């Protein structure tokens, strides 16, 4: 980090403003490039929405295809379609899905809460338990409890997430009948707001645990090696020599330093969690964004597909910026980089 630290208060505000402006420009540029790239990718797949509808209707003719293509705006040349699309992106208009007869923004907004609830729960669960378990394994490296944790996390890491989900359903829903197997809420039963929250909570357990499992394994392993790394550093020896208690050393000295790689990886994976939920959402019939993407892809519903991609890329970029900010909090050596 060769960042120039600016001490004077006024200069510092200026530096932050400059950095922010730089971010915004970078942000917009990246989003536009991604949007163009998305457009090209999506249209490179064979077939179009009109053919898909015909393929699923058991009948078709020229008139139907022409009607649908005109409606979707597919009768115009690609460059014009791309220009129309980018113009809309700049004006923050995500477009309209003729297939679903809804604006893309409303479709996404409708699905986003369910996905965020699922992924945020799974993510927090994975991160928190990953850090705890990894630290435990790290400080007990070589002992039997470390071996057990390492083996279990390796197993979890190697388990396909859909299989794990189905096995949990078999155990907790089919065999024990403790937890609901699918859906996000009990349908057709009048409930108070509180009952509804509790009910959603029950439905959330299995998908969140399944989704968390794989990430949990990653964080545990990462945390373990990171803790091991830090434990052998000189300042830990110093702390021990000072006579600090083991607990205090772990929390104050080891954890804080060992967290850095976790934050990096977690920041990168938080974005992937939105997309990575497709499989879990499908297995548990969870009405989230992942399934919206998957369905839109199969149906060649271009506006929806492009809209979701765009929203996801914005989320990923935002999360990366957030990771940068968290770095600054955890590691005082990283400071706002002044534009030179």
């Amino acid at each position, binding site marked *: 980090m060769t960042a120039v630290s600016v001490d004077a208060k006024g200069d510092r505000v200026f530096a932050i403003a400059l950095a922010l402006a730089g971010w915004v420009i970078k942000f917009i540029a990246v989003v536009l490039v991604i949007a163009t790239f998305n457009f090209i990718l999506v249209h490179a797949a064979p077939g179009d929405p009109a053919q898909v509808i*015909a393929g699923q209707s058991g009948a078709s003719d020229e008139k139907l295809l022409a009607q649908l293509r005109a409606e979707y705006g597919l009768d115009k040349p690609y460059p014009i379609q791309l220009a129309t699309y980018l113009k809309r992106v700049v004006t923050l208009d995500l477009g309209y899905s003729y297939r679903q007869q809804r604006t893309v923004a409303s479709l996404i907004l409708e699905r986003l809460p*369910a996905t965020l609830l699922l992924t945020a729960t799974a993510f927090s669960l994975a991160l928190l338990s990953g850090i705890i378990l990894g630290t435990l394994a790290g400080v007990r490296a070589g002992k039997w409890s470390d071996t057990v944790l390492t083996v279990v996390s390796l197993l979890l890491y190697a388990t396909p997430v859909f299989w794990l989900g189905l096995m949990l359903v078999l155990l907790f829903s089919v065999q024990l009948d403790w937890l609901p197997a*699918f*859906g996000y809420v009990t349908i057709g039963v009048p409930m108070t707001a509180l009952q509804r929250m509790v*009910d959603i909570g029950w439905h959330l357990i299995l998908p969140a645990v399944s989704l968390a499992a794989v990430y949990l394994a990653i964080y545990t392993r990462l945390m373990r090696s990171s803790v091991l790394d830090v434990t052998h550093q000189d300042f830990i020896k110093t702390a021990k020599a000072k006579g600090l208690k083991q607990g205090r050393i772990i929390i104050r000295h080891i954890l804080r330093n060992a967290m850095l790689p976790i934050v990096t990886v977690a920041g990168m994976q938080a974005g992937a969690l939105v997309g990575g939920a497709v499989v879990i959402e499908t297995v*548990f019939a*969870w*009405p989230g964004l992942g399934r*919206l993407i998957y369905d839109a892809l199969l149906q060649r519903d271009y506006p929806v597909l492009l809209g979701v991609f765009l929203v996801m890329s914005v989320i990923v970029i935002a999360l990366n910026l957030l990771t940068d900010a968290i770095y600054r909090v955890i590691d005082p050596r990283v400071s706002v980089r002044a534009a030179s």
Partner: protein
Amino acid sequence: MNRREFAKLMGVSAVALSGIPLGITRAAGQTKGGTLNTIIQPEPPILVTALNQQQPTLTLGGKIYESLLRYSPDLKPLPGLAQSWEVSPDGLTYTFKLFPGITFHDGKPLTADDVIFSMTKLLPETHARARGIYSRIEKADAPDPLTVVFKLKSTFAPFLTALDCTTGPIVPKHIYDGTEYRKNPANAQAIGSGPFKLKEWVKGSHVHLVKHEGYYRKDQPYLDEIIYRIIPDSASRAVALEQGKIQLTQWNDIEMFDVARLSKLPNFEMTTKGYEYFAPHQWLELNNRIKPMDDKRFRQAIAYALDLKSMAQRVYFGLPKVATGPVSSATRFYEKDVKRYDYSLDKAKALLDEMGLKPGAGGKRVTIKYLTPPYGEIYQRAAEFIRQSLGRVGIDVQIENTDVGGWAEKFSNWDYEMTGNLVYQFGDPALGVSRTYISSNIKKGILFSNTAGYSNPEVDRLFEEAATSTSEAKRQELYSQVQKILVEDVPVVWMFEQAYPTFIDKRLKNVTTTAIGVHESFSDVSFG
């Protein structure tokens, strides 16, 4: 300990988890009330069957939109919105009398005007299949609000077979007339006249239908509500069935390989009835434009080389019936006295030898690409069976996989060598069979047309004559002739009369009583 006890233990309100509120009452010998929980997959884009005819749309929309007629399992017309009907001796004029007191879900009455508007204006504009049939109507009259008279341009025998709820759904004229049909904001409400109306649609989760109080049939519908849950994963659907969370499955909700296991469930009955109107016919499509498939002997060799009986057992777990020709035995005008292609590797090899296709290195005579239809895992298993079977006679099959968009694009533009196809028969050869073989329907870019590119003037003539003849006996004779010619020529290799497992909760009555089956209105379905 079950979930309810567990929930109590954990201090959770049992109300939220108390399962299905049945609230069933029994009065005058007819059980009324109750909630039917079932599955819909994939999620339909909209529910207006006049605007979208994808299969899940039709299943759900069948409860919301009704048509003039229903059909018995042997495809005889039954009263729908029309309580009676008459056909003039010349076969040109059709008169329908509507039931009195039919209302739409918004309370407005359904009259002859709505029927005429739907069938002569809206459907010919929006519905590819209806367009081909209802555009034959020359003149439509409403002598009174409950009478509709259609006069056809020329005789068209299957007209009376094409008035089911998937072909001729009646929509409200007062909502659609003069609007852009596909962009009408009322499409979201799906206002029909069926026994059930849309209460709520939570995208990605479920569609909730409730009883239409103003329904015209006395005491019907018997059910209070139907909940269609969107469960995209087939294993999860099987679990939902095993747990009794749903009381009905349809079409391919349950994978064939799960059928034997789930058939043992004590509370469910499994049937393959109720698909007679559609009679899905499955075949191996061969691009007749490409060598060596342009040679009838090669196509016959493939027919001999496929052991369909064992394929029905191994891949489809005994559900479908082996098809003998282009017309399904479940539908009308089937001819069983045709050439047979019983499994014989020797006959297949002899034909290939005769063509001069000698086995080369490793026994290979020719390599052909097979584009697997993207409609589920069962099609992949079928592709593997076909590859192994044809490999035995030296036809090397290379499997290509794609999704619906890719398959439709390649297949309809004739950019394929061999693929699988599944086509509905729609109750009459003139509606669902001839389109695959007549040369006037060779149309690039259009699915379910004559994609194989087969052309035979004699076949064209026979199909044309049979469609317009008004004598049933004459039609049978013509269709028998055409079936014999087609089976000799093998433009495509017919494999199965496909069957779908419908699992029905044993308490449910009248689910598959008509040829429309699970697409039917369910007005008379009841618990017990």
